[in-house]
């Protein structure tokens, strides 16, 4: 069984590759890149597509997804989240542990992985740092890692005690899993719903200071230095946060960082009409922060682009702004935002952007993915970097419709997504 992609532009940062070539997939694995003649293959057992003008990359990896299952299936299920991932060009996604029950023990890890096996893409899971996400006692990190969890996270429930976070990092280090942290000093964000500053003052909303995020970034970096643990900072949004990460990296601390497309695409101006869909944690910041995030992506301070895909039901957003749930869906708009706001504007070359969506997240999680090297699983994304699209949430595969981008015109999209040699999105487009 083979699949031949002819005449694409193949970009594989893991091999430093950006070349016009053909890509052959055989039996679910990457077989060969080069000039490949379909007539030399057993034509009855495969199909060749001409993908002239399109870009072929390793399947995109998203290390920050809320799959909501178990417990919040009305928001999203592993099945629908995976379909949304496939539609957005992602072949591997990492679920966050803030489910109900919390993914804080082996049984829940196994449940999620089982559900994931039947889904469209590769579903990985993180395990919670603390039991029931309460920030009081360390969860059974060892058991969870043995069951397959590839990261330990306090996402959505940031551990407030520095001492406990130190122990979590020290303990996780034994298993060589990264500790993936949501940085927020909760004492500064009680009741807050948007970035502190002029827009917030004018809207009369409770302010969320940037320092609430930056203080925790600094703390966690210092704890990573103390513990020697691999630390990953989630959704960096501020210029000051970038500075902290730059400092940590210059010290040689084992540290990676991600940002999300909304943090380099939108500012707190998106909230001026109290758009609940633009309410997100951490909040949208200012243009100066957007500029700093872009600069940090360009100079490598920020390693990874992740979505923080956070689906919610309509009734959780169609309420008073301060009562609306935090978060926005991201899987199906990430690639267009990346291409529109980073590539087309010249912030980053396409190859560097693809690295932050493939090789870098694969390295963080220590997984065999994010590469088109021979023998690797055939997870492949085919991208049209010039396609014009209009965001229509009604067309999302995700159950979540909570995007602040409704009706926005963007450039670029995933034409097709291949997982383990199987086309999971765009089969009709390829024809």
């Amino acid at each position, binding site marked *: 069984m083979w699949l031949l992609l002819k005449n694409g532009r193949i970009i594989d940062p893991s091999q430093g590759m950006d070349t016009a070539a053909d890509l052959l997939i055989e039996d679910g694995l990457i077989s060969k890149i080069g000039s490949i003649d379909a007539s030399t293959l057993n034509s009855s057992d495969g199909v060749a597509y001409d993908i002239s003008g399109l870009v072929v990359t390793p399947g995109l990896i998203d290390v920050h997804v809320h799959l909501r299952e178990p417990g919040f299936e009305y928001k999203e299920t592993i099945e629908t989240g995976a379909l949304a991932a496939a539609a957005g060009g992602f072949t591997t996604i990492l679920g966050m542990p803030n489910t109900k029950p919390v993914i804080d023990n082996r049984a829940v890890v196994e449940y999620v992985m089982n559900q994931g096996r039947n889904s469209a893409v590769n579903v990985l899971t993180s395990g919670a740092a603390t039991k029931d996400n309460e920030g009081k006692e360390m969860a059974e990190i060892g058991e969870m890692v043995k069951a397959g969890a590839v990261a330990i996270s306090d996402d959505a429930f940031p551990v407030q005690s520095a001492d406990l976070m130190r122990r979590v990092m020290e303990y996780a280090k034994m298993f060589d899993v990264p500790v993936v942290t949501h940085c927020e000093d909760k004492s500064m964000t009680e009741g807050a719903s948007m970035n502190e500053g*002029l827009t917030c003052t*004018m*809207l*009369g*909303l*409770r302010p969320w200071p940037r320092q609430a995020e930056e203080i925790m970034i600094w703390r966690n970096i210092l704890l990573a230095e103390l513990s020697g643990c691999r630390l990953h900072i989630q959704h960096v949004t501020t210029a000051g946060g970038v500075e902290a990460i730059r400092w940590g990296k210059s010290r040689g601390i084992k540290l990676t960082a991600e940002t999300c497309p909304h943090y380099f695409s939108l500012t707190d101006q998106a909230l001026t009409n*109290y758009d609940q869909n633009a309410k997100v944690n951490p909040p949208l910041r200012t243009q100066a922060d957007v500029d700093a995030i872009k600069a940090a992506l360009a100079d490598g301070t920020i390693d990874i682009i992740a979505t923080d895909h956070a689906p919610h039901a309509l*009734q959780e957003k169609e*309420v008073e702004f301060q*009562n609306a749930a935090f978060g926005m869906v991201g899987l199906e708009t990430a690639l267009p935002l990346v291409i529109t706001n980073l590539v087309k504007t010249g912030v980053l070359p396409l190859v560097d952007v693809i690295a932050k969506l493939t090789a870098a997240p694969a390295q963080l999680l220590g997984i065999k993915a994010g590469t088109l090297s021979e023998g690797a699983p055939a997870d492949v994304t085919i991208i049209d970097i010039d396609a014009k699209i209009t965001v229509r949430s009604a067309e999302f595969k995700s159950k979540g419709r909570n995007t602040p981008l409704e009706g926005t015109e963007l450039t670029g999209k995933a034409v097709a997504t291949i997982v383990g040699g199987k086309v999971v999105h765009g089969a009709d487009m390829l024809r």
Partner: protein
Amino acid sequence: MQLQRKDILGLQDMTPEEIGLILETAKSSKDILARPVKKVPILRGKSVCTLFYENSTRTRTSFELAAKIMSADTTSISVAGSSINKGESYKDTLLTLEAMGVDLFVIRHGAGGAAHFAANTVKSHVINAGDGMHEHPTQGLLDMLTILENKGGFDGLKVLLVGDIMHSRVARSNLWGLSKMGAEVRFCGPSTLLPSEIDKLSVKVYTDIDEAIDGVDVVNVLRIQLERMNKGFFPSVSEYANLFGINKNRLRGAKSDVLVMHPGPMNRGIEITPDVADGEFAVITDQVTNGVAVRMALLYLLLGGGGNVAAA
């Protein structure tokens, strides 16, 4: 001239012409209030619903009286004793009441943007009677009417608002309205109660009350909410009164014909001393009367369809 808008959500997005029209209409409304029989049929058959998610006595009563004087039917709903306590969403509450035929909602809510939400949810008119820390446009307008009556205009007037600026929707509405009409607005309060980047707006910001009060035409004293103390915004009531309380001595720094205003309810002896509150410069009860007039004007302009109240 008519108001070309469905809702009154705040003064930020209003033009000086609109504000001028509302104030002129309010002056005419006041004539009705002065009559022995305070009733005009102009809004007969219209239904006004006051929907209050926060406690209020004066604003709610003021709106109800304004509507009743103009012969509208009024309904009052407060959170206590309504199905809101049974978990009905804000959206459903609005849609349910609209379906019963409410023509105009008067809404007070603890959440900033709640009036915008309502305006986007129902086709009926919405007047914001205070949304979180955002705006309280009718308070801003009644303060402006009071200033207009006493000073004859706004151009070049120095108006000081003192107190908890951060949490004050009154301060914000006053700032938008007064600055649009040409007044110089000053804010003064403890630095912990000044909102972030407020100095980027057209307002002079002070933390020293004696500096702030120097030469002003109007002092508008904001209510200090005592629960703020427990959140660490200021150390004690007595320190607040010493540093920011408006007393006779302090008032000497202002112009000799200064107006003293307070949106109420007052904490006598804290943000304002009783002798000032009841003194010759105070127009605090006039503000209350003007509140009814301004609300009559808005109800008329939104529901009555143009022209002049007095002509009806």
